[in-house]
């Protein structure tokens, strides 16, 4: 079964491909642009991108699935990336992860029922002297206690677009 795309998504993807296809080695750039525009890389994008870049669908699918950063399902309104690497572990990241899962009621790679937050693991945010760390929609947080985590969610939820 061919995955379907909304006409708006298909148009956006075609425009991105047309803009970037002449750059050297453009596939990653195209996928970044698609994810930036749509929030994720829909399965239906694979065919369009493959056609536009003169690649096989297998090649495009292979790249989408190789990289952890590309998501194939729509994210929640906010993406919370919690660092799971060693420096954060040394400062209680495992306990913080348990707290985050309880608080949000989801596991990693899942989105809350109200669609507000997606919880993702990440391996190092380069904030290792202020561990444990998390990133929400590109904003970095450090020295996170469980209370700090809750305050972070409240701040992000209250943020006006």
């Amino acid at each position, binding site marked *: 079964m061919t995955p379907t795309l909304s006409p708006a998504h298909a148009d956006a993807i075609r425009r991105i491909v047309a803009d970037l296809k002449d750059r050297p080695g453009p596939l990653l750039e195209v996928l970044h642009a698609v994810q930036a525009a749509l929030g994720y890389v829909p399965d239906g994008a694979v065919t369009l991108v493959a056609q536009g870049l003169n690649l096989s669908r297998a090649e495009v699918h292979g790249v989408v699935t190789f*990289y952890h950063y590309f998501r194939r399902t729509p994210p929640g309104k906010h993406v919370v990336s919690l660092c799971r690497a*060693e420096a954060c572990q040394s400062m209680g990241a495992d306990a913080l992860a348990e707290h985050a899962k309880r608080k949000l009621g989801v596991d990693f790679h899942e989105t809350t029922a109200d669609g507000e937050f997606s919880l993702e693991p990440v391996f190092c945010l380069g904030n*290792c002297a202020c561990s444990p760390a998390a990133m929400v929609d590109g904003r970095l947080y*450090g020295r996170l206690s469980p209370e700090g985590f809750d305050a972070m969610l409240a701040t992000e939820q209250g943020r006006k677009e």
Partner: protein
Amino acid sequence: MTVTVYVPRDASALSVGAAHVAEAISKEASARGVELRLVRNGSRGAFWLEPLVEVVTPKGRLGYGPVKAADVPSLFAADFLNGGQHPLALGVVDSIPWLASQQRLTFARVGIVDPTSVADYVANDGYQGLRRALAQSPQAIVQAVLDSGLRGRGGAAFPTGIKWKTVLEQPAGQKYITCNADEGDSGTFSDRMLMEGDPLALIEGMTIAGIAVGATQGYIYLRAEYPHAYRALNHAIAAAYQARYLGNDVMGSGKRFDLEVRLGAGAYVCGEETSMLESLEGKRGEVRVRPPLPAIKGLFGQPTIVNNVMTLGSVPIILHKGADFYKDYGMGKSRGTLPLQLAGNIKRGGLVERAFGVTLRELLYDYGGGSATGRPIRAVQVGGPLGAYIPASQFDVAIDYEALAGIGALLGHGGIVVFDDTVDMARMARYAMEFCAVESCGKCTPCRIGSTRGVEVIDRILGGVESERNVRQLEELCELMLQGSLCGLGGMTPFPVTSALKHFREDFRPRRPLKQAS
């Protein structure tokens, strides 16, 4: 006179509230009708003092930190703009012993200058290296890098000058300078700090490399987890083009060098150079079989320099001050300085740039002040997730490529992650295998399958299933991964595992099976 105030825009400083502090200072100043010039600098790297606010006074730059937004009214009340006394006052920042005792060459400007300003960069010795390089022959530039003893700071420690010489000797044609800014090791943030705090140093280093080997195009391969560095680099590149330090007539020399940033997408293995090149070409980041070396057949099949941010960021000062100046720092075959990163459970974490030869103990206790929790330090992991765990009995080892190799450890990218005595080393060993399984590119079997088997074997040991036999099995598996993997991911994952087994064997006792981590 308008007073200048510095509040960092470094991502780590922002993560603990620097943006709120900057905003509060602006607001309070306008409420009081005080004029001030607010500069958003990089971080000095003393992260336990962040957000660190600095005020320019006749006595020098005075520091206040760590400042919370709520402290700002009291800072104004204490007349901090004229260096007034306050409980958070730190005195002259350059005189804080933690900073004053460092030897900052690569980080000379980080935290000092406005990273968005070419003029500020030039006023602080910026572009002196490129100026000198343009007056020399390509061979002489490469010779200077060779003579400086600079070795690849990404971890492999290969002499940088030899890579450059190889690319220089390839027939003329399209060549590339690529910068590996896929700083994925936990416990490392020096690349990020430089790219955010002094991005023009990296840009100048890459331009010098391009002039040296005849490459007209550069790419910075930056990890997607660093959005702040992405903005800082793009801003600095645009400014450098504007001021004609990049483009078709670099500093009026008639020579061309173009530069752009490409984003990775969350694959640790893309820090391996051939995998990074695949990724830059828009492909899966699978490791290439070498030979051919990237210096001969690299990006798009052309001769390519692949260097780390710290390596390229050290090039300007080598060209500016000369190979001997740089080489005079260091010990043995490890020349120059190394920006080390103190991370994890450490009281005074941050960036410490010192000449090679400083001991691990000095870093952990003199700079670091011991653990953040106040408990004894039990283990440190040096060199990222593929680095060995070092026990307290070996803390007198010198930071030097050969000395660390001598105790079965490695320096890697200079990250030092500290653990107190509550750490469960069997769990850390299991994590190393688990991380390798998640991040393996899948091309070679020892890494792809070995890491998954490694997790299972450790689970059996801890579950009390034939523990002795399974410990031997784990050791054999590690040997196989070490010998048989295509690249460092599978080939070095055994280091944390076997070092944990060797130094912390008591943690590998049978217990209830571990809960599956994420």
